[in-house]
């Protein structure tokens, strides 16, 4: 995904750095949902996630000329900004994640059965709790691999690690999730 769009992204970045706001608008349209999800899964609060996402892209727009093409995708840069913003957020606000605030779109199920909806809500809550209990690099790999469905190569570029390391982290993360959720039957 990143490799195919990389040339186009570089062109958009160059135009945005020259002050062409519409070019940055296209980058925003392309990546703001993924960054929002990444932030939301870390803070578990819709408004806070929106606020952080806004500041991630505002920061990127204001400093787009600082982005240097070193063969890395722009998502790598955006995820790094997002990560720093989340760290700042927890450092300053000491906010505890509220997992009860589960977005309704995840709970969309075909039957509309209330009991099934409750079970689904509990299952999602358990998985989110288990995900947050993982070390940060494992959390990031799980989010990018299974939520964003990025290939190992792209995750390696974004996180600045080798593909082999990403595979190891993914394996450990799944094992840990299984271990944490072994007593829970969905």
């Amino acid at each position: 995904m990143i490799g195919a769009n990389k040339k186009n992204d570089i062109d958009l970045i160059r135009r945005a750095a020259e002050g062409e706001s519409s070019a940055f608008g296209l980058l925003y349209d392309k990546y703001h949902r993924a960054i929002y999800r990444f932030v939301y899964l870390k803070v578990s609060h819709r408004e806070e996630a929106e606020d952080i996402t806004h500041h991630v892209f505002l920061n990127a727009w204001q400093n787009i000329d600082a982005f240097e093409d070193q063969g890395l995708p722009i998502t790598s840069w955006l995820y790094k900004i997002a990560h720093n913003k989340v760290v700042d957020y927890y450092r300053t606000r000491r906010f505890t994640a509220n997992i009860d605030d589960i977005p309704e779109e995840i709970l969309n199920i075909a039957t509309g059965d209330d009991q099934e909806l409750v079970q689904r809500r509990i299952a999602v809550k358990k998985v989110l709790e288990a995900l947050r209990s993982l070390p940060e690099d494992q959390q990031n790999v799980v989010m990018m691999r299974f939520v964003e469905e990025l290939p190992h190569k792209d995750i390696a570029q974004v996180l600045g690690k080798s593909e082999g390391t990403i595979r190891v982290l993914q394996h450990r993360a799944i094992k840990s999730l299984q271990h944490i959720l072994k007593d829970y039957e969905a």
Partner: protein
Amino acid sequence: MKPKEILHILQSLKDIEPRKDFSEESRFLILSTKQKHSLKEYLPSRVSLSGVLSQSFLSHPLRAIAFTFAGVLIIVTAYTATQEISPLFLPGLNQGKVVAEAEMINKTINIELDRLEYFDATNKTGSSALNQVTSKQLDHLNQSILEKEAQNIGTGTLSPEVEMNEKLNEILKQINQ
């Protein structure tokens, strides 16, 4: 929970999306914000006057013509002003007359200097005389006058105290004999 179920729930998290209102509002706000540009963007990598001028002139040829015209105008004005002000460039100037006039001015200055010296000497003499008249001390008087005064005092009658002392001395001498 089985791995398949875990992965299924994880994949469903992709449905998480920001509100459409937020996306539109945030996009608008970001794009209406000015970018922070570093100063280096506006400057060439090596700043030099010739570089800046050549870049400026290449992008604006009319500016180059205007600068050239202004330069020529400044040179012509400076040359003309020099010609007008300096007497060395006056045509038909008689140098002999200029030298004679300079000598005349020099003589006049010398006469005035002599007069000033005379006034200075007169002033000194006058002030010295005034000092002698007004001073109560006798330092300023002539030495010969002072000696004559001393002699007159010496030859005059002695004071009664001195005369008494001399007589007493004589009586003492007689008693001792």
